[in-house]
């Protein structure tokens, strides 16, 4: 999968989970910048990403995945 495709898919998941307006954001989202992205929403995001990419994350990875940049890095290793 191309880097761009991965990022687009990730952002699609994040924006839908966080109910964000598509146009207002760049390519990289950071957990700390969104009040909606709390520890509960994180669980939903992880589940959505796992379904989208058909992968499973380890707890250590789940804790690290706090920005779209980190998410790309971890997902790329699994594809």
């Amino acid at each position, binding site marked *: 999968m191309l880097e761009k495709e991965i990022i687009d898919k990730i952002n699609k998941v994040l924006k839908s*989970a966080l109910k964000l307006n598509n146009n207002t954001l760049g390519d990289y989202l950071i957990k700390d910048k969104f009040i909606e992205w709390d*520890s*509960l929403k994180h*669980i939903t995001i992880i*589940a959505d990403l*796992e*379904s989208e990419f058909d992968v499973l994350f380890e*707890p250590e990875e789940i804790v690290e995945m706090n920005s779209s940049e980190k998410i790309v890095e971890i997902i790329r290793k699994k594809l």
Partner: protein
Amino acid sequence: MAHNFFIFRNYTIEPLFDKIEGCGFSGYNDIEFPADFKYYVWFYLLPIRVNRATIAAEVDFFRKKLELVASNVTSSSILLCFTMTDPDPFSFVADDPVSEAIDTYNNFIFELANSNRNIKAMDFRSFTSKYSLRELVDSRHFYMSLVPINPKLAGDFSSWFEQKVNAVESIRKKCLVVDLDNTLWGGILGEDGITGITLGNTYPGNCYTDFQSFIREIKNTGVILAICSKNNTADVKQVFSNRDDMVLQFDDFSSTRINWKNKAENIVEIAQELNIGIDSMVFLDDSPFEREHVKTMLPEVVVPDFPKQPYFLVDFIKDVYNNWFQTYELTAEDTAKTEQYQQNTQRQKAIAQHHNMESFLKEMEIKLRISESNPVHIPRIAQMTQKTNQFNLTTKRYTEREIKNMLKKGYIVWDASVSDKFGDNGITALAILKVEGTTALIDSFLLSCRILGRGIETAFLNHILNHLFDEGFRTIVATFIPTEKNMQVESFYDNTGFNCVSADNTRTKVYKLELTEKLRSSELFGITLG
């Protein structure tokens, strides 16, 4: 769904409800009943523990809590009670106490639902039975975040939940209109003849037989049946009278249109004859052409896609029932019972509000083990400052190193392990104080949300204040710093006897309390020092 749901729960289930709008959640195991929700949802999951006897005891205890919650239900609100399931009936002994506890618990829910029209049973098995244990429970999320039901099921769950709520709302269709050829039986009557159409005990006839049996059960719940088919009436009547493998009988149908006219026109006539709206009809037909025609001409009629394979017919008709014909309507006898029940609950409520919460807490046998500046606890203490958002008065985040330094500088750190008769929650309450002369300043005060709603915060605070009083402290200074998430503790110090001495435009508030005597310590909790 524009409804407001307030969910009583014992586990982290927010991810499961992520796709459902307008949900509020109780504290864990908290049964305080907030006003102004249309729907209250009782959703207690089987405790995930090893010891089966403890689980069974806890389930029994849930039943008592539910009884209390149920007594708060008014005629303008609805309580939806999830039944309990055991996704993993793993037991070390043959005689498993949990299964009996679950049966008693579920029977209690069904009895509640039968005797109060504002209480409805939600059979959770109808959701969980579609999944294997591994699909239903993701151990990672359980051990990481106490999320017992796999968050990946959130989408499926919201559809299931919506169906159940619609059923409660009785958004129910009145009439099921069916085609005949390749719908009630296999084959085409006009071509295959009365003996040629397939029904009976072997494939594919057995699919149609079961399909008919299911439709007959739907009729028995009060749904009107009608036939709309392009056939000769005489032939059709012969099928009903001559084929003894027909489950449905001709007089099961309240209205029939067996002719060669177009189906939309026939459906309108059926509606007129039965004196129902066409928006209360569901039409089943195997022909995509006929379905499309009816959908286009009569958009108010529900026309579900029909399965191509006969072996999907029963799954299909179950979905049809779940989507459009589920009901919670009650009989006259139930209604009479409901009135009795409501009188009883009003009586009980007057008593309940004063005593029950307290007696419940006593029954829980809650114990606080309070430690002062225990170096072994530092990692957990630092972790709590990092993770706790809701019940956190100042939301100051500290690392382990910072906590160590603070202890060196003379700060006092109190933590409390909270246990009840079902188990130990570990260190879940924390206070950090800075002391100067006879003044103590509360730098941090926080509780894990796992133990909220039991009055533990006040007992913990009072214990600390009494201890300080004994040590000669006379003035306590405290601060509330608002964040997006801690509004529930905005008035904590106001409610515990502190006086607000200043507030700035960021809504940060500073409080003072002069200690003149020891406070009465709580009788609800056993407090030990350790």
